[in-house]
């Protein structure tokens, strides 16, 4: 996968120093292929995204999301096939129930729901992938470092 770094045009010093870390869980068949397409199509997108390939968004356990936050992710993205297009028939339908519910729980806990994003990006949507990453990176930059877990990372007690 190739991600061509877009040059940051931010003139604000603070903004240029903060590079959000975004962990993305992508389904193998649609979004991962879409990201791949973005790469082979030489579409640029911010390099802040770190991808975990999964067979399907249905494989995304909320544990993964929390663990990513715990480990220092500023944002988590889950991206998969559009509804109806799941390679496994219904994995994304299950994800579409489970993960937004989890997001509402996070929100209830006081974790900004915007820190957990979901998208549907098909294998042919290299352009959309590039756009999604650009958009959420901009959002993550705007939201700033996610410090809830950072602060308790080395918590002794």
């Amino acid at each position, binding site marked *: 996968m190739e991600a061509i770094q877009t040059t940051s045009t931010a003139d604000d010093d603070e903004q240029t120093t903060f590079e959000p870390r975004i962990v993305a869980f992508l389904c193998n*068949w649609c979004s991962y*292929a879409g990201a791949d397409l973005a790469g082979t199509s030489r579409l640029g997108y911010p390099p802040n995204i770190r991808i*975990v390939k*999964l067979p399907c968004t249905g494989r995304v*356990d909320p544990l993964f999301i929390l663990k990513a936050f715990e480990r220092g992710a500023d944002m988590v993205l889950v991206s998969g096939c559009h509804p109806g297009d799941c390679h*496994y028939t219904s994995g994304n339908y299950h994800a579409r129930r489970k993960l937004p519910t989890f997001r509402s729980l996070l929100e209830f806990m006081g974790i900004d729901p915007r820190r957990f994003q979901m998208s549907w990006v098909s294998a042919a949507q290299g352009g959309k992938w590039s756009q999604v990453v650009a958009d959420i990176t901009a959002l993550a930059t705007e939201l700033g470092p996610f410090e809830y877990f950072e602060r308790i990372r080395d918590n002794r007690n």
Partner: protein
Amino acid sequence: MPTLTVNRQEIEVADGATVLDAAKACGLEIPTLCHHRGVPSAGACRICVVEATSRGRTRLIASCAYPAEEGLVVQTESERIKRSRKMTLELLLARCPESERIQEMARELGVDTPRFKTENRNQKCIMCGLCVRVCNQVIGVGAVCFSGRGQTREVVTPYKELSDVCIGCGACAVVCPTGCIDPAEFRDKLLERIPNEFNCGFDSRRSIYVPFPQAVPNKPVIDRENCIHFRTGGCGACAQICPAGAIDYEAEDEFTEEKVGAIVVTTGYQLYNPAAYEEYGYGRYPDVVTSLEFERMVSASGPTGGNVYRPSTFEYDDDGKIVGGEKPMVCVFVKCVGSREEVKHKPYCSNICCMYTAKHTMLYEHKVHDGQAFVFYMDVRAPGKNYEQFVRRVAKEKTATYIRGRVAKIFPRNGKMVVWGADTLSGNQVEIDADLVVLAAAVVPSSGAVDLAQKLRIGYDEHEFFNEAHPKLRPVETNTAGIFLAGACQAPRDIPETVAQASGAAAKALGLVVRDEYEREPIVACVDENTCNACFNCEPVCAYGAIGEKEIRDRKGNLVKIVAEVNPGLCQGCGACAVTCRSNSIEVEGFTDAELYAEIDALVP
């Protein structure tokens, strides 16, 4: 099964057969007028009389209506019969002297001029009632009937008015022995011509038809929507006529379930509808056609028999066949109609248009020797073997004038289609008065491609072309195991490419199905029997029904517990079950919790 004697020949006929049938079975010809195979006989015209002897008594009977009784002795040739027929024809000729059919029959029986005269001569109708019977008893509509008695008797519509009862099927006209019926007298709107889809609707077909000459299987099908039998319950003419008894109206479309080891998807393409270019007027101006319509025209088996005519001038025969038209002397071909149009249409190149357009110009030249062809093009893309040479030949032989530029507008003027375009090489505006404009419309996937893809669980791109597993390394496979692609359903492809891909797909499919043992994907789920709670929440989540129950027994065979089990042959490894399992007792090989944990762990230092 009665047995009777016809002209001293014994014959056994089917129950319900008529004497006429028996005679025919003996190879004897009996003239008829009011008889039609598909219509119940009435013995109205009495041309078909024969002598029949039963219980010692000999009479003249109408063979078309008289039942073939057991022991009946029939004589089809005799003076008495001849006299009777002559008399009948004399009378008919007197009534219908102009009818060619009657004249012909009269000649055969040696009747020259009738001895009788009638007031209202020159009728064609012989009052045989065949049309009334066909309409009532066969079509089942009853749109025509007899009216009046004796001299004033005539065949009319009820109240002599055009009625909606008539469905305009034209059966009456077909059966009329004297050809005196024009269905237009019964109904203002006749049954619509059924456009022949294979010929792009240029000509028509019947409601029972063979879809196209090379159809597989090459057998007729009934178009239920248009078939009179399915509309009124009547007709059934085709069933009566078919000597093989192959027509079965009861036959239903069936869903058959087949278990297969592989599927090759070859659903092909269709043309982008150029009506989307309003400025080209496709659909409004008959002389603006698509390349496929042109292709049908130049085909020897096509609607025009290989002649190129301007569609606005098509001449049809009674059967709806095109028999003539005006040859287009100036023909303009427009390429890239819908292709390579990022904004409103399709951004991709349709791949095949350059080559077939070059071919079309050549065929056009063959068909219309002194015609003039122009081609509007963006580029000429001819990257196949010998393709470039072919295009050069077209240019060299001047079969067409290539104009690099796009067409801005097409409109009719003085019976011509005016084509406004640009020649970007010379920088000039071009105006051509064309007789025919052929649009090389973009290639798009067949309608229903998305539905099919969703059924098969194969991917498709934003243009609805199916996705191959890998553009370079797995071009004929899909991401779903056992499903392969060939041809234009995957992307615009020409014939050699399609054939090559189809061969590859076939080989791949065979490679899959000929094996005795299969390798399954290593990425499947497995259940930890020790920790499984047997809640079976995973079961409904599995789209493949791969989760079953497993009984755990101790050494003595006592049931200890039941746990979930994954059938690795069915499992596709999506992992939805693993997430549903709260105790994390299901792992997906290759995407185990431990592996994913390590990945997440390492991603954010």
